[in-house]
């Protein structure tokens, strides 16, 4: 029995917008670019969006009006809050990915005793980060279902911290932090942009 033989869905030739599944081109005309997929010889849309034809690459792309599904990918820069910091690893709750807010609640893992360029000895001397700190980090691996983070770059590291004794604000003294309230001095692996907002 043929159920779909006579199906007539509207032919799309001069459309500018597409919804998921819509045929936007055939492979003879255009390659399947971003936001599209190839089904047999049909290029179809993966989401709602504007159809953009790239004539130089002969590809068709669908630009989503406000793409909000961002998963941390290799090479992304994330900002997050340190949930737990142990001696070797810290778990970071990711709050933004490449500057875009993420409500998905992904957790990344930051290896604290890594081969950071600042040298092992120095890193071991004090805490790299403590729970509650705001950290900027790079996603360097997503192996074994874990988002592995690195802060091995001058602009990466702790962006903001508060005193672990009294909760007061810090002032930066080179690579250390001094509490304005109680005078306690703590060490962190600071980002070059510490305190900038």
């Amino acid at each position: 029995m043929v159920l779909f033989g006579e199906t007539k869905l509207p032919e799309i030739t001069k459309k500018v917008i597409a919804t998921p599944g819509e045929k936007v081109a055939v492979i003879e005309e255009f390659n399947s670019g971003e936001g599209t997929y190839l089904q047999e010889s049909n290029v179809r849309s993966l989401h709602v969006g504007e159809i953009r034809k790239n004539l130089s690459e002969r590809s068709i792309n669908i630009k989503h009006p406000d793409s909000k599904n961002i998963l941390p990918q290799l090479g992304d820069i994330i900002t997050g809050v340190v949930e737990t910091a142990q001696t070797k690893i810290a778990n970071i709750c990711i709050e933004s990915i490449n500057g875009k807010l993420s409500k998905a609640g992904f957790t990344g893992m930051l290896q604290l005793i890594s081969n950071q360029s600042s040298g092992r000895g120095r890193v071991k001397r004090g805490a790299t980060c403590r729970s509650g700190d705001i950290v900027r980090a790079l996603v360097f691996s997503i192996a074994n279902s874990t988002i592995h983070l690195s802060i091995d770059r001058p602009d990466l590291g702790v962006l903001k911290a508060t005193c672990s004794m009294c909760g007061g604000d810090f002032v930066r003294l080179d690579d250390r932090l001094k509490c304005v309230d109680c005078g306690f001095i703590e060490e962190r692996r600071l980002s070059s942009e510490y305190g900038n907002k």
Partner: protein
Amino acid sequence: MSKLLNSKNRRLDGRKLDELRPIKMKVGVIDNANGSAYIEFGRNKVMAAVYGPKDVHPKHMMKTESAILKCRYHMTPFSTGRRKNPAPSRRETEISKIISEALEPAIVMTDYPRTAIHVYVEILQSDGGSRCAGVTAASLALADAGINMRDLTSGCAAGKIDGKVALDLDEVEDMEGDADLPMAILPNLEKVTLLQLDGDFSHKEFIEALKLAKKGCLKVYEMQRNALNDKYFGNEKA
């Protein structure tokens, strides 16, 4: 003993045999969800919301190569004539599974490894064919969430009343009629992802009902497209 059809084959609400109930759709109605949709399908009033892709809890449910889809179909206590116990019934558990299976083939699950996609379908007011309305609303909510999808999922039922094949049964027709055939399809990929049968059809009637349900699904699909275009592109018509 004809009671659901009059002598001119008109139904109790005045519809022809191959006519859908009035349908309204709106995309993006809940600010706090990643995607949402509201549908009225006859007297059905359905709200669907999507969260995710997000972190998986508990962790052992996580799949390293793809997302997991968690779907909940729920009827509010005020959705039926008599107050419904809000605890999930066997029927709701079954429909949750059916809806999940109808949606999953449309979603590119491998684009979201190690994540969960949560779909909540809330029946605010129930009428016949609420599972089809639920699938349709859920698919719109997924599209609104911007999740990569191979196609939309569009649902509509056909059935048999007073011995005649009819499209889109309402609650009375569903209860008093002879058969109900809920269906959901991926309209562009020409795949059936939900098909159930409650009642009796002859082979000929079954084929007729199947074709009629597909016609209904395609009409629903057109409305889904318009609803998405309305949300994202306002008056620029597709």
